[in-house]
């Protein structure tokens, strides 16, 4: 299990490959489910030129570890990895990577979804957007991911 807070841009595919390399030679996993969140250049009716992500050092990591533990209580998972950006982010850069390894796809898919939704609603991160107009604004809240839209 690994939780990582990155202040620099990272390549999620490389991070996944490196992490999975460390899981070998224990190849109990038959299923890997991943979610990658990328910064868009448009949000809530405006062009966004960059974003700054604030977090609560200490609590954020603790909360992410707790979320993985909760997933482990509900599903049969073998391992999980969360990597999340902080600081200044440009459009097209990866914001978050969630990966879950399990013996079977049901547990991998469901636990990955759960971790991502729990992260969105409870992990202490806050987005401040810089608009193309030069104005800055705090994102007020995250939408509920299990509802459409």
């Amino acid at each position, binding site marked *: 299990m690994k939780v990582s807070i990155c202040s620099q841009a990272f390549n999620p595919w490389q991070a996944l490959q490196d992490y999975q390399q460390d899981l070998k030679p224990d190849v109990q996993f038959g299923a890997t489910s991943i979610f990658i969140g990328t910064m868009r250049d448009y949000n809530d009716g405006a062009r966004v030129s960059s974003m700054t992500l604030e977090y609560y050092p200490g609590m954020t990591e603790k909360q992410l570890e707790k979320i993985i533990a909760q997933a482990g209580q509900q599903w049969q998972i073998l391992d999980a990895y969360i990597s999340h950006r902080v600081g200044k982010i440009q459009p097209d850069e990866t914001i978050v990577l969630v990966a879950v390894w399990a013996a079977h796809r049901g547990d991998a898919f469901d636990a990955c979804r759960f971790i991502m939704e729990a992260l969105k609603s409870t992990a202490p991160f806050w987005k401040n957007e810089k608009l193309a107009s030069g104005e800055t604004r705090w994102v*007020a809240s995250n939408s509920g991911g299990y509802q459409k839209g």
Partner: protein
Amino acid sequence: MSIKVRYFASLGERMGRSESNLELAQAMTVADVWYHDTSQIMPNNVLAAVNMEYAGLADEVNDGDEVAFFPPVTGG
């Protein structure tokens, strides 16, 4: 007792500070810490944590605790 109070994101901007140290004469709840430190009515959507764990407004705080207040989280 001594409490470290922290504010994050838009709440930190609104308070004009990201942290302060509060000296209290008696036992207090999380809500009391807010009122003593800010003298403001708490906005509805404020979340609180004590020692980096989510906490309720009625939870008690102890000497040396770190109490944090922040707006709804928007990561991911």
